[in-house]
């Protein structure tokens, strides 16, 4: 089973409800991650404002921060290697990494489920 690690920028909390304005991306990704976990994915999330040591102790993440800075977060590692940077994964990307069979799924997540976005 692959492990997905998400390194968030400095957030008050991972849904962002503590922020001065709630960030739609964070709300969506929070739901998607929960969905993937329900389907057996192994996902860990680290918040720069809360667990900075994890960032400092991971050579890949540390090098990424030195090269591109905190503005380039989030960074997503799949089994320790960079899978995505600068934006959060969507549901289908999470499904691919975690090998979740989406054909049987009927994602209820809004109007984009048919593949054509409105």
């Amino acid at each position, binding site marked *: 089973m692959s492990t997905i690690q998400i390194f968030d*920028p*400095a*957030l*008050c*909390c*991972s*849904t962002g*409800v*503590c*922020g*001065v304005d*709630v960030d*739609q991306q964070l*709300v*969506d990704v*929070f*739901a*998607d991650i*929960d*969905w993937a976990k*329900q389907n057996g994915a192994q996902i860990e*999330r680290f918040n*720069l*404002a*809360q*667990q*900075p*040591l994890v*960032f*400092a102790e991971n050579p890949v993440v*540390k090098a990424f*921060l*030195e090269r591109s*800075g*905190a*503005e380039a977060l989030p960074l997503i590692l799949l089994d320790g290697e960079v899978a995505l940077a600068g934006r959060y994964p969507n549901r289908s990307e999470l499904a691919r990494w975690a090998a979740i069979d989406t054909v049987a799924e009927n*994602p*209820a*997540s*809004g*109007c984009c489920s048919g593949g054509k976005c409105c």
Partner: protein
Amino acid sequence: MKFLDRPPRFLFFTGKGGVGKTSVACATAIHLAETGRKVLLVSTDPASNVGQVFGVNIGNTITAIANVPGLSALEIDPQAAAQAYRDRIVGPVRGLLPESVVKSMEEQLSGACTTEIAAFDEFTALLTDSALTAGYDHIVFDTAPTGHTMRLLQLPGAWSGFLDAGKGDASCLGPLAGLEKQREQYKAAVDALADSRRTRLILVARAQQAPLREVARTHAELAAIGLSQQHLLINGILPQSEAENDPLAAAIHERELAALQNMPDVLQRLPCDRLMLKPFNMVGPTALRQLFEDTPTTTEIAVDSPLEPDEPKLSDLVDEIAQDQHGLILLMGKGGVGKTTLAAAIAVELARRGLPVHLTTSDPAAHLSETLNGTLDNLAVSRIDPQQETERYRQYVLETKGAKLDEQGRALLEEDLRSPCTEEIAVFQAFSAIIREADSQFVVMDTAPTGHTLLLLDATGAYHREVGRQMDAKDLHYTTPLMRLQDQHRTKVLIVTLAETTPVLEAANLQADLKRAGMAVWAWIINASVAASKAKSPLLRQRAANELPEIEAVATQHTQRHAVVPLLQQEPIGVERLLTLVGH
């Protein structure tokens, strides 16, 4: 004193600001220490003045009070607690991660939410058996004014409930890293608060109608969250002997008697103590030791200087305010100095002049409608109710940001919105909306007691920085609520104080805090001045004489513009009496 009879380990003093909580808490701590106990006196007020009372710098570490053996004190300062918390998190990675990354962490950890949580964290540590308090027989809390105390005390219950529900990963407890470890501590704090063998709550009030009603509400709210063992302490009662040859003193005495007789039923049932008004200020151990003594003021006090200074009236300030046709008038100051009353008086006077006014409050404990006790053309009244605002904000986020989520996702978001931080944001949003309104009419705002308001301004500052980052990057023009507050054409800040040593010092500290936030104070109002009334009773005349150097200091050292409002014979309730305050 019944409240000092076989005291349990934890003693909490609560009540509206200005009723003398700090004095009573300090006097209690001295009393217990002098009976041979080891005592720790704790202030959880973000604008604490325990240090001033003892003439010692205390701050965020336990400090021994040299001239009272056995007594130590601690001021939980939310800002300092937050700084310590930031250092704990950021310290280990300094030098390991790039400087810009460390800076982004520090910015994230500088909001109001971190501040509140860091202070709360320290507070629970004192309540639970830690090595920190092992050496003390008693811990005396001089708690922050009512609204803020409520939030502080309710948090353990709310959080334990939040954690027990256990849905999602409770991520929005946010700045509390290592949550599971804290869980035990919160549970223990709740248990300690509810245990009458360990905790006694002393409700402090003055013999006045509104404060007593307020105390009755606090009593019910705290009883509901499990603080069942409560005492009532009526402070600063004018001795009957003073009432003989002075209409003002007689009116005050009668007003106090009536207030005590008509005290709400729930309060009548509590064990009650009464303390007499003293002719001196409660500064220093010598004065504090006399607080619990009922020695009548027999010494005839010779006062030579004239006692009715010719000072500007509130109407002089309103004249200037009215010229602008619109604007935000913010009344700030410690609890209990009369912000609500003066806000209502200013609003009523503006409305009387035919100017549209919105009178509002950000103080959860304020009751504008009781003060106003009537309606007036051109005057709209509202309040920022934290519970209502939080509910509205939750609904808004669920309907907009949560619109496309499936059922499970929505449930998670809903759970996260139950975080204690949400209230902070919701109140800020409501505050911002009201600030904008002042572009087209007058908005007179009675703010919550100082500490709470400073936290709110902190949130305003955090928002300003956040918007600034986003907008500067796109090179756009913008106006944040903070910029409106800093603009003297839009916003006038009025500091309200009493003409007593400690309140004036506190007001000066507030002015300095506001200056750091980039906000200038427009004027000071000295409220309930005995010197500006025509008092004849020896005790009141002595208090009036004590006021003169304070009024002088305000006028010459602290502000360019001030007004003095006299202590009235009648409680300033209702439109007519409010207009009398203004000077008509």
